[in-house]
């Protein structure tokens, strides 16, 4: 497949800074539209703080519902960035280049969004300090470092800080480009933000080493984050269907499945909105789809293990839960939709090269995956809680209230708005990676055939 374009640096700057140096016509109306939804969401939060959690559908025994599902969902999406940036950087996959920045950005914004949900779910978010910071000496109560609910903020805090710094370091050379293309206060801003980047060999060398070193450091964090989120559930023996050892890798692989799919969705949007056809090409979708097939199959194996071990113990309550999850109304409908959208429809389609290279098909199938993955989290969290168990006095199901649906909608609008605001001030496709790719790829002639080749530095 030969889709590489030879572009000089001037063209790269000109095309990739299209959204920064000029404002596309659709940008302002879209941002304003999203702002309306975002403000509506904040209003809903205000109503909830004022009236109490009674306005949601949460009630005993289902205390964790849509909010926690959505929290897990957005933490899952955040696994896009490091998967693309770190793993593909370490394995020297050339096709990662145009997607790294947007994927890292998605990590940062989806984590920010994920953080909202446990906070608002606490009902009185300002009291969260009692829970994670050791300050209340007078009462003699400290945060319980043994609780998974305290592990969470540490894991997510580390991942968010690390991802933001990772994003910033890789942004330095591009900030230098923006400094050289702007005037007035913008120039001053980019001068300070780029820290005086000049592009000498030392700075480039450090940039390369930093990419590898930070990737190697971020990878173990990436794995730990969703594992720790999974332990919120897995270490609890009291809820059927939660106390499963496979949860940690199951959540991580599921997160990669949903995160990489979200990157595909985003890439299609970037290509359509900014017209970056020279940079985001069908071959990138093809490569991501191949990666997704592998990830999805691993995820299916883990799902299979999860289900088979549910039945393995031959204990009546656990079997009853599985029966309810898969065969009883309305869970059976959700389960079918989950399985069809999360795996059965998109993955077989990706086996066809024509689908992998069709951007519209990739867009829609990647959206399907995320519908499925949201439902997966819902099906893990809610049915387990809604069954009667020891120390549970009622046995009731859970109806998601309109307010909760509103806040789910808010989360999507919020992430999109943040992404669009970012795109106004910073390039979404890394310029220097694109230029580096131009330098480090070429063609090689073997006999009568010309094949793409890359340049590898010798140690």
């Amino acid at each position, binding site marked *: 497949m030969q889709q590489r374009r030879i572009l000089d640096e001037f063209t790269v700057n000109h095309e990739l800074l299209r959204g920064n140096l000029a404002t596309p016509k659709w940008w302002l109306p879209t941002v304003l539209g999203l702002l309306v939804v975002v403000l509506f969401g904040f209003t809903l939060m205000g109503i909830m703080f004022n009236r109490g959690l009674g306005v949601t559908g949460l009630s005993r025994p289902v205390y964790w519902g849509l909010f926690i599902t959505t929290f897990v969902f957005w933490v899952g999406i955040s696994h896009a960035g490091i998967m693309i940036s770190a793993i593909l950087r370490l394995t020297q996959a050339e096709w990662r280049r145009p997607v790294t920045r947007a994927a890292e950005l998605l990590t940062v914004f989806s984590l920010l969004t994920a953080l909202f949900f446990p906070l608002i779910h606490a009902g009185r978010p300002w009291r969260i300090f009692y829970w994670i910071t050791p300050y209340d000496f007078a009462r*003699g109560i400290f945060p319980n470092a043994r609780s998974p609910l305290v592990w969470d903020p540490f894991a997510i805090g580390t991942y968010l800080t690390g991802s933001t*710094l990772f994003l910033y370091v890789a942004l330095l050379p591009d900030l230098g480009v923006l400094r050289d293309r702007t005037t007035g206060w913008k120039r001053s801003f980019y001068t300070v933000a780029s820290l005086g980047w000049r592009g000498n*060999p*030392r700075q480039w060398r450090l940039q390369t080493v930093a990419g590898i070193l930070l990737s190697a450091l971020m990878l173990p*964090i990436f794995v730990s984050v969703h594992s*720790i989120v999974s332990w919120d559930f897995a270490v609890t023996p009291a809820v059927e269907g939660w106390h499963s050892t496979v949860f940690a890798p199951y959540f991580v692989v599921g997160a990669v499945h949903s995160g990489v799919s979200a990157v595909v969705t985003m890439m299609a949007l970037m290509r359509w909105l900014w017209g970056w056809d020279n940079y985001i090409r069908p071959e990138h979708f093809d490569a991501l789809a191949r990666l997704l097939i592998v990830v999805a199959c691993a995820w299916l194996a883990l799902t299979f293990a999860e289900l088979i071990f549910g039945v393995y113990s031959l204990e009546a309550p656990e079997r009853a839960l599985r029966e309810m999850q898969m065969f009883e109304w309305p869970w059976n409908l959700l389960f079918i939709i989950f399985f069809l959208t999360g795996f059965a429809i998109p993955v077989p389609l990706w086996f066809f090269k024509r689908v992998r290279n069709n951007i519209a098909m990739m867009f829609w199938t990647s959206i399907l995956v995320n519908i499925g993955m949201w439902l997966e989290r819902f099906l893990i969290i809610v049915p387990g809680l809604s069954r009667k168990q020891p120390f549970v006095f009622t046995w009731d199901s859970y109806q998601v209230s309109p307010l909760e649906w509103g806040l789910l909608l808010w989360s999507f609008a919020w992430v999109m708005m943040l992404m669009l605001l970012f795109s106004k001030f910073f390039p979404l496709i890394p310029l*220097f990676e694109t230029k580096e790719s131009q330098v480090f790829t070429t063609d090689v002639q073997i006999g009568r055939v010309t094949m793409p080749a890359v340049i590898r530095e010798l140690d």
Partner: protein
Amino acid sequence: MAASNSVLGLYDTPNAGADAMDGLKSAGFELGTFDVLTGTPYPEGAFGEHVPQHRLFRFPFFGAMVGITLAILFTAGTQLAYPVITGGKPILAVFAMLIIAYELTMLGAVVATVVGIIFESRLPNLNLGAYDTRITEGYIGVVVECEDDRLEEARGVLQTAGALEIKTA
């Protein structure tokens, strides 16, 4: 000896830039007093430049040490200060503490690495010296730091290699 002048030669092809670097070397300018500025990373040594040394790998170890110390203080200190048994776990529950210790160790390592990257890149340094905005557009800049007495010689070498423009700062 502080270098008092910074001279920049601007070239439109990497080959010309590499020639300028060769010229400076053969004219006897010391390694480390001249450098190449590019808008894109090239393979190391592509311009025959001085290969920079760095100590970046020390930073994460230092950061990790700080992180793990803080984590132990937080997890052990808070639980020992007000020992309350919860969930039948020991007060110093090592396997639970390990998780927070791991996260803070990694956080320390990442933060220190980023500080290290900025420090080792010799940033921030808002004074760009002799510079041209066309460098981020694909032109190659070769910059020489020299005393007044070698200024003309440096300009000459840069010119011979085919500089489009020569700037002094």
